[in-house]
């Protein structure tokens, strides 16, 4: 027995299925955040945010991890941004789109997709052991910097390429040199794109576990210098959850982590919007 389903009917069926699947997708994604928040908000208190970690995380707060995360991320971005943006500027403004640029862009494209554990593997043997930097904020930041450089190169390159040639012509015809043009016209104009890349990198660095646990270590002490080992929020959360040290603290830590990341992404989003409205 065969049914012939008319185009109208199939349209309606398809619509319902699509709607259902979309709703499921959205619900699942929201459920994950909601579930963590529901269990985590009860844990949030001033004490939790400002106290030292005690008993391997069973007691006390997460201040050392918050500071460690901040340290590692900021240092990574400080290292990666000039390198990434500088490379992108060089590629777009100085290489005339030749073979070199294609090869480098391709390499950056590929490395942007390399799993973070490979960066962890590299960072552990190279920075921690061979360069004798030990498990430290410095090792962690360097590893993360290498990890986010490709992303920053790629997004900055796209943003810089998008600056109209006419802007450069104007700058030159007003007597600007190449450096003036790059510094005062090209970079400010491509700033939103560059910023997006940097902020994506920040988000990736904050949430990263695999590359950090082997390089920044897992010490719970309060970091005092770039040579201190630290346990970032993501790593702390991973260890709490996985070793069942304290599910309550795990939820609390995850909540803080997610809030920070959503906040960073949100700020990026707003910033870009403001910038676009002002200039375009």
């Amino acid at each position, binding site marked *: 027995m065969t049914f012939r389903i008319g185009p109208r009917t199939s349209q309606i069926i398809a619509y319902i299925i699509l709607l259902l699947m979309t709703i499921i997708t959205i619900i699942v994604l929201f459920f994950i955040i909601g579930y963590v928040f529901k269990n985590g908000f009860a844990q949030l208190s001033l004490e939790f945010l400002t106290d030292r970690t005690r008993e391997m995380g069973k007691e006390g707060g997460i201040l050392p991890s918050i500071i460690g995360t901040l340290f590692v991320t900021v240092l990574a971005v400080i*290292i990666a*941004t000039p390198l990434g943006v500088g490379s992108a500027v060089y590629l777009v403004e100085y290489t005339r789109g030749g073979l070199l640029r294609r090869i480098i862009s391709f390499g950056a494209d590929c490395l942007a997709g390399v799993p973070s554990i490979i960066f962890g593997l590299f960072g552990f043997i190279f920075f921690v052991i061979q360069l004798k930097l030990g498990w430290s904020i410095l090792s962690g930041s360097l590893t993360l910097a290498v990890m986010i450089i490709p992303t920053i190169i790629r997004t900055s390159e796209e943003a810089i390429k998008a600056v109209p040639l006419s802007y450069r012509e104007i700058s030159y015809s007003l007597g600007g040199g190449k450096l003036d043009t790059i510094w005062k016209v090209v970079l400010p104009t491509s700033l939103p794109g560059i910023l997006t890349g940097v902020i994506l990198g920040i988000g990736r660095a904050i949430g990263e576990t695999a590359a950090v646990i082997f390089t920044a*270590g897992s010490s719970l002490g*309060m970091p005092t210098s770039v*040579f201190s080992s630290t346990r970032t929020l993501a790593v702390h959360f991973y260890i709490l959850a*996985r*070793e069942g*040290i304290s599910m309550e603290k795990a939820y609390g830590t995850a909540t803080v982590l997610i809030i920070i990341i959503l906040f960073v992404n949100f700020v990026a989003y707003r910033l870009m919007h403001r910038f676009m409205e002002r200039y375009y």
Partner: protein
Amino acid sequence: MRYLAIVCMLLLTTCSQRKGGIIIAGSTSVQPFIERVAERFTEENPGIQVNVQGGGSTAGIQATFNNICHIGVSSRNLKGSEKALHEFLIAVDGIAIIVHKDNPIDDLTIEQIQGIFAGTHKDWSELGGESGEIIPVTREEGSGTRGAFEDMVMGDQIISDACLVQDSNGAVREIIATTPQGIGYISVGLVDEREKALAIDGVKPTLANLLSSQYGFTRPFLLLLLEEPSGKVKKFIEFALSKKGQDILKSDGLISVTEIGK
């Protein structure tokens, strides 16, 4: 330019502080215990920060050789060239075979345990328990605890590929605590109320049995140094071996070095 300046400043202002702390690295089994000792130590010596890393026994030994940490920790005896390091025994740890707290089985023979981990026993009913698939959980290749378990329990049997693999005592414990059919092995000191430590050949891993060596599945916890201890490192080792330090370790279920002789 500004970037360079900031980076330089960070490095300069902080370089000197590296000397202020002690970095300890190695066995994840020892980490929770040494962390507690370190916490007390810092309370009594506020100037000295102690950083405790995991990584594993072998990594700890390596780190000590490479001077990446001040003190290495190992949960197994040193082998071959590793013996060049100075070692300090701070405690002895028993390895407990644990199952979920609702598991009716209290006692297994060493052959039965071998059978479970080698993959020959597959169902709890074979061992007198309620019928259900046995889910053995082991440690990862290279772990000190796994090494000790293989030496002491498995003998010439090989741990089956079908076992779940976790990379810390805590992770193993967490699975056993939540999996009714699970069985695994962790430090005696870490067993809590959610799981049950089994007697092996009728001997339970109680403190008394551990002390009297009736329960033979024990291993040393070692602190390792590249050179003779001095300064703050010496202070820390002395603290760990002092009555205060040993009491902390004892209260966590380890056998204090002072009791071993008895």
